[in-house]
């Protein structure tokens, strides 16, 4: 059959842009402009080295900011949305249906709609241009996604389990964290992976909330370095490569979970 050949050909065409980055990360600066498509021969680590040792520390500062923002956001998001998801799944009150709808509507709100007033809210609370401000925004904006994943999953956990633990004298919080939460591992993995990648890659929110001068995450750092260092393409490619490396490792390590989380809804139907 010709299937493997066709599959290879289609994938190769699709892969060309990715090849362009990989080849140019390890190529001498002047060769990138002259012959961007050529193989990096001989390969060099000069670009990577230049980014890592920049005098202004752009890479390390933005890496630290991205790590702090991403980790804090996804940890808080997991806790808040797991508990809110539990409330929505377990409380039989009529208004929880309304609340669920209001939260699900949040899944489709474009950030542009709320960014202008957000800057005012953050300015009033003195959180504008700070990392906590960005983290709080992330938590609010992505809580619907977390709730969506968790509440669906919690409905599959038998309520008798919780009742039994309650009868044994555990408090509601103890029951949730000791009995229910450990059972939610697949949902937790989806939430951590998706939100981790989205928040790490986010551009517009850190650009506006952290402001033009105050702070830089890894994506806004890349964006600014193309403006400032137009000529030094090697550094731009190396910066993009280094910024993607953590996500790539994260993805490769959790590939199975990743795809399962992505397609959970599709196959359930």
């Amino acid at each position: 059959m010709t299937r493997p050949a066709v599959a290879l050909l289609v994938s190769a065409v699709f892969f060309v842009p990715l090849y362009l980055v990989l080849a140019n990360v390890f190529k001498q600066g002047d060769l990138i402009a002259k012959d961007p498509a050529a193989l990096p021969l001989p390969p060099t680590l000069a670009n990577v080295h230049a980014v890592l040792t920049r005098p202004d520390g752009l890479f390390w500062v933005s890496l630290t900011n991205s790590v702090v923002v991403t980790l804090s956001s996804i940890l808080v998001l997991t806790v808040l949305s797991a508990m809110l998801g539990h409330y929505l799944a377990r409380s039989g009150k009529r208004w929880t249906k309304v609340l669920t709808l209001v939260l699900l509507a949040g899944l489709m709100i474009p950030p542009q709609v709320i960014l202008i007033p957000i800057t005012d809210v953050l300015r009033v609370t003195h959180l504008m241009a700070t990392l906590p401000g960005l983290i709080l925004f992330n938590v609010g904006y992505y809580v619907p996604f977390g709730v969506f994943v968790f509440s669906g999953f919690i409905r599959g956990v038998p309520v008798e389990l919780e009742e039994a633990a309650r009868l044994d004298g555990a408090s509601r919080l103890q029951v949730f964290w000791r009995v229910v939460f450990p059972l939610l591992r697949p949902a937790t993995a989806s939430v951590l992976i998706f939100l981790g990648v989205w928040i790490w890659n986010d551009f517009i929110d850190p650009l506006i909330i952290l402001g033009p001068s105050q702070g830089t995450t890894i994506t806004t750092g890349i964006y600014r370095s193309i403006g400032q260092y137009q000529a030094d393409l090697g550094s731009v490619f190396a910066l993009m490569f280094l910024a993607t490396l953590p996500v790539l490792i994260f993805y490769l390590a959790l590939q199975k979970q990743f795809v399962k989380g992505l397609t959970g809804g599709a196959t359930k139907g």
Partner: protein
Amino acid sequence: MAVTRKPVLPRVGHFASFGAPGVLVYLCFVLAPILISFGYSLTNYNPFDPPVRFTGLANYRLLFSDEQFLTALRITTILTLIVVIVPNVLGLGVALLLDRKGWLYNALRSVFFTPVILSSVVVSIIWSRLLDDEGPLNTLLRALGVEHPPGWLSDPDLALYSVASIVCWQLLGFCVVVYLAGLQGVPAELLEAAEIDGAGPLRRFRAVTWPLLAPSLTITTVVLLISAFKTYDYVKVITNGGPGSGATATIAFDVLQTGFDANHVGYASAMAVLMLVIVAVVTSVVLNFLRRREVDL
């Protein structure tokens, strides 16, 4: 059971401890800002040009005669149509092609999925290098004898389609993965039965596979739709709204440009509110239609 359940899971305090923190952040950072946006949209608010006056629906009326906004609306519509249709069609095609076991197909799946985990900023920079007037693609075209290769990103008539293609490239892998998962849910017995009944590959696809992929189509379409409406990063990084006067300026781009760069906060808010209404209406209509299609199976 009903008697014991109440004391076991009493509701008092349940919301306060479990629901309230999440709802509170959502309220402060999503719901309240939407209301504030609506409030701003009824004024001439501009932080550098006080005083603020209530102007009623004037901003909204102005929008419908604003050539720039109508262009942004048209651009967003074209972009959305392309981004919803192309990755769906190509994604299904690639999924059918890769729907085989073996290391080769596994490896190729990863190739298609990689762009999904890249930042849109990274994708934008890669492609703006690739499609530059003097970039690798045009160099190749010149070598092949094309004397005046197109200005992919510098020609106002072409730039929008180039940007749309880039968005499609990034989202294609997402569709491939969702369709591959959907294909795994198609029972082999059903396909075999159809084959025994004499159905050819096309007939088998149309009568068996495609209807069973309905849930996959719902997911990809809604996700693509929402991503397309939000398109900002690519436009900002690749063309900054140009070339020329806003050849690629989407509504999402226009809102922030008007609100933050031109400081017409009131007017930008009206645009944002209208954008939200359009997203909500279109998404629920499409979702409803696709859901009904699933049920009809």
